[in-house]
């Protein structure tokens, strides 16, 4: 199965990396690196690095870094991972052990499995132990199973607009959290909706094209596998608003595995889950949890560290698995 997944990702990268940049090997490597993403932003062009090399802190010299985690699914207790709270804790420990302390974290949705208050409580408690105190959330479909997401909004989306979207600036980078899991239509994919798209257009208007933009949302804003709902119906329109910017990074969750592509000045990246893996598109019976041997689980869960560098003009994304070994990328 691992080989198939590898092939698929490799194939995607073959298709997409026609920009002459020697990025393919790197991305391929990144796709295998694991469970956490470290992003380094530098001057707007995304660059990735392998987590194991991040110990060479000076070589990065980033202005700041932030960490993305995703799909914690607190409350899930099936064989694919009977203790998702424990693996979330491992992820937090890993974040706290990063050589460079992240300025903040983002969580790209599916905090809970069933939108239960107790699940949100557990997540909240666990995240309080993270060294990065500021955490930005967007909801996943599992966070809006009841009351149209009111509970999520009250607890994790204070001050946001609509169903939970917002933007903020951090050290010259403009971040936009989007919601594409609300009011989904029968037969469709993820959806941003007219109101949010109008807001986004307005939010980006008047910003300098040299401003690095980071969009984050739960369901991928690029079409990965429509049969499994891995895409967003109106993402093209959203992406049309960021075309004029020199550096755009799109961070998503939902698919519980790392995938990347670069399209012009837009780089797309999905993060691993902290709870359970899902199969490669079309290679499993469905988009449900994938059971792996217990001793392999932490190799397919992880965090993402992102490092921003103004002078180096690069944005580095590092995925690292929870088990700490770099075996996933050692073949590179």
């Amino acid at each position, binding site marked *: 199965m691992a080989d198939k997944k590898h092939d698929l990702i490799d194939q995607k990268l073959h298709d997409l990396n026609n920009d002459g940049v020697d990025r393919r090997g790197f991305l391929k490597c990144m796709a295998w690196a694991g469970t956490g993403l470290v992003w380094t932003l530098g001057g707007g062009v995304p660059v990735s690095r392998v987590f194991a090399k991040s110990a060479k802190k000076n070589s990065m010299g980033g202005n700041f870094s932030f960490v993305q985690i995703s799909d914690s699914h607190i409350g899930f207790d099936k064989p694919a991972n009977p203790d998702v709270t424990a693996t979330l804790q491992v992820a937090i420990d890993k974040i706290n052990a990063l050589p460079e302390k992240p300025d903040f974290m983002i969580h790209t949705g599916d905090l809970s499995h*069933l939108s239960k208050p107790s699940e949100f409580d557990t997540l909240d408690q666990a995240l309080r132990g993270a060294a990065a105190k500021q955490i930005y959330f967007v909801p996943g*479909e599992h966070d809006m199973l*009841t009351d149209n997401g009111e509970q999520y909004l009250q607890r994790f989306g204070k001050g946001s607009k609509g169903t939970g979207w917002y933007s903020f600036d951090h050290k010259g980078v403009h971040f936009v959290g989007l919601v594409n899991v609300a009011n989904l239509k029968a*037969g*469709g*994919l993820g959806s941003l909706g007219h109101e949010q798209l109008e807001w986004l257009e307005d939010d980006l208007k008047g910003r300098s094209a040299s401003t690095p933009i980071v969009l984050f949302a739960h369901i991928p804003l690029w079409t990965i596998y*429509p049969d*499994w709902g891995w895409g967003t119906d109106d993402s093209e329109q959203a992406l049309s608003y960021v075309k004029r910017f020199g550096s755009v990074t799109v961070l998503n969750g939902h698919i519980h595995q790392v995938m990347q592509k670069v399209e012009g000045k837009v780089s797309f990246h999905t993060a691993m889950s902290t709870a359970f893996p899902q199969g490669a598109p079309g290679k499993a019976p469905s988009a*449900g949890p994938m059971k792996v041997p217990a001793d392999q689980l932490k190799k397919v869960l992880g965090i993402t560290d992102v490092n921003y560098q103004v002078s180096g003009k690069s944005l580095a994304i590092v995925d690292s698995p929870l088990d700490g070994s770099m075996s996933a990328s050692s073949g590179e």
Partner: protein
Amino acid sequence: MQQLKMKQFANLKWSVAFLIAIASVMILVGTASQAQHENASGKLVGTAAGTDAASQVMIDNFVYSPVPLTVKVGTTVTWINHDDIPHTIDSTQGKFKSAALDTDDKFEFQFKEAGEYPFYCRIHPKMTGKIIVQP
């Protein structure tokens, strides 16, 4: 509310066993009024209907089956989620809407009028199905 009850049942096997025992005793003793009897039977339908495949829609691997399901007017259809991921049953016409069904949770709806009733999962909208109700 019905589906909420069913959900609690799925999580409380002992309670179910206990209620079955109570219901059995009530039926045996014959003291239950008609209303109480119906109530007890109604609660047990979630378990008992498991044997009536003609009025069931199963959810396995993010797929409703069968699609469409054809039933007679008056039939109570039961949906059962066998996935490790929650799903819902939402009428596209607004006729019925389930809570999120966790693993092995059930949802029931009685169709009192002939017609076609498309539905989908509001969590995974790619999942669609249809009930055809014949006179």
